């Protein structure tokens, strides 16, 4: 039985977003919904670090102060959540992943982002480089809120937002693509919103 249409129901959607900015099946919103897979971690900054491990010549590690001392940039991007909302012109501040990977010798073609609380997500290394990804600690001109992933989250806006892992603590470089928390449970391994790659087999 096809779903019954409820007269007059529109939902909370903006109808005025330019269609070339909103991928297929998405709806623009002015909110910033909080989605979570677990309790919000609260790692004290003096215990926080970001590491690059796995298929690397040597382990790289930055403390919070060291991360914040790296060159950072302000960027404005559109973000697309697999639950169908898109938010345009979001403003972030962060360190480009290119800066962190600079000088690293690796044969790895993939990476798994790992996080406080145990969340993981996998991406091709190519999608983390070339100015496409950041470790971001600022949103909307303010420090990133814990419920949105603060102190720092991965930001990879060209893929569905589950790839922009909250509470990120590092990258593990891998030779093969290893499905992360959601990718191993139905979500697409790659997740390109413009090809609507939401689930396995899409």
């Amino acid at each position, binding site marked *: 039985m096809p779903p019954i249409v409820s007269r007059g129901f529109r939902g909370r959607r903006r109808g005025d977003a330019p269609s070339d900015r909103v991928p297929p099946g998405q709806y623009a919103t002015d909110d910033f919904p*909080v*989605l*979570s*897979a*677990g*309790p*919000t971690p609260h790692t004290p900054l003096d215990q926080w670090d970001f590491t690059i491990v796995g298929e690397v010549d040597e382990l790289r590690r930055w403390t919070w102060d060291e991360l914040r001392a790296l060159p950072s940039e302000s960027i404005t991007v559109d973000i697309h*959540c*697999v*639950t169908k909302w898109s938010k345009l012109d979001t403003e972030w501040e962060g360190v480009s992943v290119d800066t962190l990977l600079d000088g690293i010798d690796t044969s790895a073609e993939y990476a798994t982002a790992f996080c406080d609380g*145990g969340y993981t997500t996998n991406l091709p290394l190519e999608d983390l480089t070339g100015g496409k990804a950041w470790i971001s600690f600022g949103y909307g001109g303010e420090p990133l809120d814990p*419920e949105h992933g603060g102190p720092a989250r991965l930001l990879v806006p060209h893929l569905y937002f*589950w790839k922009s892992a909250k509470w990120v603590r590092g990258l593990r470089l891998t030779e093969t693509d290893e499905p992360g*928390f*959601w990718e*191993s*449970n*139905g*979500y697409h391994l790659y997740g390109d919103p413009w090809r609507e790659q*939401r*689930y*396995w087999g899409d």
Partner: protein
Amino acid sequence: MDALKLDGNAAAGLLQEIFTAEVTTARGMCAGCGAVEPVGAVSLYSGAGMVLRCPHCDAVLVKVVTDGTRIWLDARGVRALELHAPTGP
């Protein structure tokens, strides 16, 4: 304690599309800490999918994702689930 957190009662509608046995009273043992609770009493987080977590140790018990037609279920976080066979009229 996260105000966003609900409990297994809110996951039951979707889970009852899979199980014929009643789900909220089904008890499971956490593969992390061994605690036994009914599904109705465990923690639920909703985002891209539903994540049921042990209310004692926060370990992931069950993950559920649906696209409206397929349902993906990972129950590795539960050692075993105790379900009551449906009783007839």
